[in-house]
């Protein structure tokens, strides 16, 4: 369940992040402002508060979501704000001359974005993206507060039954470590390979 919430939240975050990063770096001032407001609001409010608004808040006004979809939406919207900034930094890291050159060769703005800017921006954003996925994996532990049955929630149930809190929470910590540590190592290796490619 932890994996489902993490993967679901990640996919929603990436989609929202790409859309809003496009809006944030685009030419339309309304969209640009909208993206700015989205990033600032959702980065300034705790993800727990956002989860409670989506799960308990919407539930009380008649929109009842199951805990798992609620958690995926909550983490997705919250993560989207973080990834908007990550992708924006990636897009801005690609030199402006590239877009101008593509334009001079007759590529439309959309094609320039897809074929020229995005592939390079993706490289720049990749390390942050890996870090984000590790953060997300750990944050899903908060879904236990809205009773989505992931690792932490199950651990809580076990503790209630057995009272072996130290052992069980240590075990939970080890469980998270076994998933997030390889991710961190993977991220570092990826980073090294990409920077090596650039220096060559």
């Amino acid at each position: 369940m932890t994996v489902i919430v993490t993967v679901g939240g990640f996919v929603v975050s990436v989609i929202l992040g790409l859309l809003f990063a496009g809006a944030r770096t685009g030419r339309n001032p309304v969209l640009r402002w909208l993206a700015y407001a989205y990033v600032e609001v959702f980065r300034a409010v705790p993800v727990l508060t956002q989860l409670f608004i989506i799960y308990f808040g919407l539930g009380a006004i008649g929109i009842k979501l199951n805990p798992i979809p609620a958690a995926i939406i909550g983490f997705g919207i919250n993560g989207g704000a973080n990834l908007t900034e990550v992708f924006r930094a990636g897009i801005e890291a690609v030199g402006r001359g590239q877009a101008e050159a593509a334009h001079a060769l007759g590529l439309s703005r959309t094609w320039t974005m897809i074929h020229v800017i995005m592939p390079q921006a993706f490289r720049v954003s990749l390390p942050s993206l890996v870090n984000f996925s590790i953060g997300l994996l750990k944050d899903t532990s908060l879904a236990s507060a809205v009773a989505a049955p992931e690792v932490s929630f199950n651990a809580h149930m076990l503790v209630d039954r057995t009272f072996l809190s130290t052992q069980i929470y240590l075990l939970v910590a080890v469980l998270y470590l076994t998933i997030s540590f390889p991710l961190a190592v993977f991220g570092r290796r990826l980073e090294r390979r990409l920077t090596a490619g650039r220096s060559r």
Partner: protein
Amino acid sequence: MISMSLIESWLPELGVGALRTVEMASLAYLLAAVAGLLIALAEGSGLRWLYLVCRTYIEFIRGTPTLTQLFLIYFGLTSLNVVIPGFQAAVIALGLHYAAYMAETYRSGIAAISSGQSEAAAALGLHRLNVMRLVVLPQAIRIILPPMTNFAISLLKDTSVASLIAAPELMMNATDITSEYYMPMPVYLITGAIYFLMAFPLSLLAGHFERRSGNRLRRDLV
């Protein structure tokens, strides 16, 4: 139905919660800043075993959720007959959590100061501790200011997790009001707005620091 007077009756309790949140975040930040610096210095001290202890600590903290660490300290220690009140447990857990992240930031800040500087200072006869205190750290602080401000923002938001061990802070009070009136939507929306009012100025400050250090870098390049 929701009315202005109803919201007004919630505000005192939410206000008290917000103050406790600020208190918790400040104490945890202080603990993290000091402990993080000690870890960074111990890691770079050149002692092999100390380095390994620090690395293990950092990897463990960074690889596990804040919530799990909070539960370990609060429920875990209780079962070993060490009873800590929720507020203090949250300060310790969050402080130790951020100490690991800050240690990494200090380390990169120290590494960014070229080794020629500390060699020069050592050649001038400064003691190793004084080299750190007088030459390296003052310059490193400039570099780490933006990430350190960002830590303050994340820490402020992460205090909300303390409500899950019933430590008194903003999110806890919001949940209390919710269970009394059963109006989660307005209560949590107002709570979110309060968090925003606290975190947004910090976010502007972080942006300011980032721009300033960026400008400095650009000026240095010219």
